[in-house]
């Protein structure tokens, strides 16, 4: 097998060479602790401030509103728990959605055990949240609304500005998990009235293990990690310096290359979606046809199961992912696919292909050549396909 095609960029990306080159000196010669008074420390501190400026600039925030974390999940935890604990005296109700990343859903479930009340809003068949549903869910004791910017599985982009405005009108904090949106969507937290926003380096060609939470000045939030005064006392622990340098460079590059990259990726995505829908019968596109991330294609192929599809694709050198129960390691298929109304047996047959900088038109052609054969082979093996094949449908 010579061909290797990576179409799982929503899971993670490689680190861009330019990003890596900026990071490398911070493992060796610039190793100082940024909290130290001496020059070794001060030198590093200066560069962390530069990274903070870059992250802030990319999303229209002030540098002092950026807090580095160990990734997107920690940023989500800090936003949700931090606001919940700090505002308990005002109320104990949180509004979120059924299609959030587990970092938000499971944090909310934990808060429910601790006495908080959570409303999980449903979505339509495309995975869109209706802002009016958010408005209706607001109660006197609502303290936080957390809605993801764009969905990691089906790529649907939410009406974030509208939802943020509803939160603001009602004086409720608004958080968005923008882990998948950074580099794919232009964001301005000030214009959009976003109070908190989570992001993670490894989704936009930066390193793993580093993320950030934007916290608007004035938001009442307590720290969830104690033990030092780093990050203005909101996130204890010696900074992951190379990671922070990396995320700063990566986000700067992502927005420098924004149009060129996203125009090209959108073209490839559309070709992929069109080709798959034309070549493979009994297939549905998951997510919104237009309001979706430029890199995301997500399908359900009837009569087959996702893990066996992934294994077959992998044998042909194609890396994708699936929301089937077997590939998630749980008994249930993806909560997102169930939330858009798919029955279990359809949700088990899902495939997500997420494109990135390395993908070419030839890659898409190759997938379009290989995928229909694999789906057909699995269907020939599937007892669910017998009726269809026999012309009974």
């Amino acid at each position, binding site marked *: 097998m010579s061909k290797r095609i990576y179409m799982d960029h929503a899971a993670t990306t490689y680190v861009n060479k330019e990003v890596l080159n900026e990071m490398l000196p911070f493992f060796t010669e610039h190793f100082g602790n940024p909290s130290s008074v001496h020059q070794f420390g001060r030198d590093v501190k200066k560069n962390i401030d530069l990274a903070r400026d870059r992250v802030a600039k990319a999303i229209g925030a002030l540098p002092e509103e950026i807090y580095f974390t160990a990734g997107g999940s920690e940023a989500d935890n800090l936003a949700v728990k931090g606001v919940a604990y700090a505002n308990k005296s005002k109320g104990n109700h949180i509004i979120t959605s059924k299609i959030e990343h587990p970092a938000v859903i499971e944090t909310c479930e934990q808060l429910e055990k601790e006495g908080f009340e959570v409303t999980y809003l449903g979505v339509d068949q495309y995975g869109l949240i209706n802002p009016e549903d958010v408005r209706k869910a607001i109660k006197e004791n609502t303290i936080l609304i957390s809605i993801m910017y764009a969905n990691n599985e089906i790529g649907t982009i939410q009406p974030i500005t509208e939802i943020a405005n509803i939160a603001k009108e009602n004086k409720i904090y608004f958080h968005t998990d923008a882990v998948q949106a950074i580099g794919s969507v232009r964001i301005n937290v000030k214009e959009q009235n976003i109070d908190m926003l989570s992001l993670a380096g490894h989704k936009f060609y930066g390193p793993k293990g580093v993320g950030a939470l934007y916290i608007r000045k004035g938001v009442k939030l307590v720290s969830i990690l104690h033990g030092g005064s780093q990050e203005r006392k909101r996130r204890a622990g010696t900074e992951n310096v190379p990671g922070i340098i990396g995320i700063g460079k990566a986000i700067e590059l992502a927005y420098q290359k924004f149009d060129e990259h996203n125009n090209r990726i959108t073209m490839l995505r559309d070709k992929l979606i069109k080709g798959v829908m034309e070549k493979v019968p009994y297939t549905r596109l998951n997510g919104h046809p237009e309001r979706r991330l430029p890199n995301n294609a997500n399908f359900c192929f009837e*009569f*087959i*199961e*996702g*893990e*066996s599809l992934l*294994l*077959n694709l992998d*044998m042909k050198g194609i890396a994708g992912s699936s929301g*089937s*129960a*077997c*590939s998630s*390691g749980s*008994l249930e*298929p993806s909560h997102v696919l169930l939330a858009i109304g798919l*029955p*279990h*047996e359809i949700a*088990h047959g899902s495939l997500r292909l997420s494109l990135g900088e390395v993908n070419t038109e030839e890659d898409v052609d190759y997938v379009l050549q290989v995928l229909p054969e694999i789906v057909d082979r699995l269907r*020939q*093996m*599937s*007892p*669910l*396909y*017998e009726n269809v094949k026999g012309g009974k449908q």
Partner: protein
Amino acid sequence: MYSDKVMDHFSSPRNVGEIENADGVGEVGNAHCGDIMKIYLKIDNDVITDVKFKTYGCGAAIATSSIATEMIKGKTVEEAMKLTNKAVVESLDGLPPQKIHCSVLAEEAVKAAIEDYQKKKAQ
């Protein structure tokens, strides 16, 4: 995560297909859970002379169906009834813990097909 043996049976499954006028057919599992196995048997004088399967499911589901058909081909009905999920797992050089239920399904599918044969015979 899968053994070479599992990958071998998954990538080139043995005995895939259907048998027309099969002497016994067994179907277990359901689409809701993501696994269905259907086994067809041709039986002469209580000896399984041919066996085919159709499976909807993950890699382990396909591999366990495939090896189970190999394990019972040529055996008597009585011998085939003794097939256990443990024996299926062993012949595949192991399965990840969360996939053990696939081997249980394979055992159940074989038994359901034999029971169908015995029921037909009794009629």
